[in-house]
């Protein structure tokens, strides 16, 4: 396959950046999208040019490191997968493909397609801790948890924090990410004692990072590689409402 790539190139965070066109020749359809970029980079290096910087790690769709917007869709539009699991057979010979980094004020570009997603880490940090007793290993099923709750918590915990929800949202909102993190702990008894404080702090950290507001367009859910449901955002809204109505977080001991 021969393709034309229009790639966002940006030397450093302060560079204005711009789209540069490259030819990707002799691409094998069985290559993943990242392998295709590896081939393009090999070619660039052999010609003495700077290779395209992009994030990747596990390359098996579970780490949440790879991140690029392909033809306007975060992770490229194949449902429930990250870019590393998108294969070139989904494209046609002669296609022109536009590749851009996640675009959000909270995710500044470091170089080319690499963005700084530490805003997510700050949200996680703000969530604090869960209270767990130390001592010997507790017996199995000491804490009865209904199967449906455990399943729902697992669905939320599947979030790999890649940031595609932010990239896809027209408002660059991080609500899907935050809702997954808030929900997965709020659904389980282990996360209950700090639930109210956690949701208030995580929403505050999210707002401070400069993410937008949720306007329920559903774009985030459509591109999420772990198919996190929009229903978790409703759950986050419910948890937040309960927390501000009870207004107990202020009276709790500071961390």
């Amino acid at each position, binding site marked *: 396959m021969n393709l034309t790539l*229009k790639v*966002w190139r940006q030397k450093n965070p302060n560079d204005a950046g711009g*789209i540069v066109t490259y030819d990707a020749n002799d691409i094998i359809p069985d290559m993943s999208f990242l392998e295709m970029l590896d081939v393009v980079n090999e070619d660039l290096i052999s010609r003495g040019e700077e290779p395209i910087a992009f994030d990747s790690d596990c390359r098996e769709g579970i780490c949440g490191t790879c991140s690029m*917007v392909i*033809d*306007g*869709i975060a992770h490229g*539009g194949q449902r429930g997968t990250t870019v590393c699991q998108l294969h070139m057979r989904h494209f046609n010979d002669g296609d022109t493909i*536009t590749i*851009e980094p996640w*675009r*959000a*004020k*909270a995710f500044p*570009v470091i170089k080319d397609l690499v963005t700084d997603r530490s805003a997510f880490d700050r949200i996680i940090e703000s969530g604090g801790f869960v209270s767990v007793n130390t001592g010997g290993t507790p017996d199995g099923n000491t804490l009865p948890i209904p199967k449906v709750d455990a399943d729902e918590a697992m669905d939320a915990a599947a979030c790999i924090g890649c940031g595609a929800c932010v990239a*896809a949202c*027209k*408002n*660059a*909102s991080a*609500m899907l990410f935050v809702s997954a993190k808030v929900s997965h702990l709020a659904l389980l008894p282990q996360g209950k004692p700090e639930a109210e404080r956690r949701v*208030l702090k995580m*929403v*505050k950290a*999210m*707002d401070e990072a*400069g*993410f*937008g*507001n*949720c*306007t*329920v*367009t*559903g*774009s985030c*859910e*459509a*591109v999420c590689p772990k198919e996190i*449901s*929009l*229903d978790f*955002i*409703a*759950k*986050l*809204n*419910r*948890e*937040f*409402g309960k927390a*501000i*109505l009870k*207004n107990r977080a*202020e009276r709790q001991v500071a961390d």
Partner: protein
Amino acid sequence: MNIITNLFSSSVGKKYIMAVTGFSLFGFVIAHLIGNLQIFLGPEAINRYGHFLQSNMEIIWPARIGLLVIIALHIWAAIKISAENKAARPVAYAEYNPTVASYASRTMLMSGLIVFFFILYHLLHFTVQVDQVNLTGKSFVNLHDAEGRHDVFAMMVLGFSKPIVSLFYIIAISLLSLHLSHGVRSMFQSLGWKKKSYANVLHCFATGVSIFIFVGYVSIPIAILLGFGKEALSK
């Protein structure tokens, strides 16, 4: 104090304001429609209804002031949220595909603002009854029925008999229905009142009620343009 700051300064809180005020305005849109559809019951019904509203100051003024506050809050939240959303993506995508995001969901601010300007016109047209804006060359204030009540029936027939006025009305109602098709669904989401078990019911309710609002409101100018209530024009 804390609850107020959380409501007005947090992203989720502002969406609560949006949802609650939106729900109130949605309630008004439904009540107003049911009131207006009485035109099809003839002059007696709608004139009696108009007289009932106008003669109860202690109901109509609190309702008007309440609506004004609610609209102000709704617009304030909309503008604040939109400004923050714009700021959240300073560099736009060269190519952006919103995938499943509906047209209605992407145009809420614009449809809302156009409906707001329509409401201003609508108030001048039928509530304040400024003669210059009705384009008929007649005065609405002087229309009275046999019992001396304000002749709402004749006013509506006369007002909508101008095709350009009816066209603006129909465009505004189309945008309002579009706005509500997304808004009604989203307000439950924003308040956290949505679960998988009844998400489909909410979705169908939002679509159904938007169609009902569109058909209900638009039926009035269409019927009038097709000749309904012609006899009132001769007055």
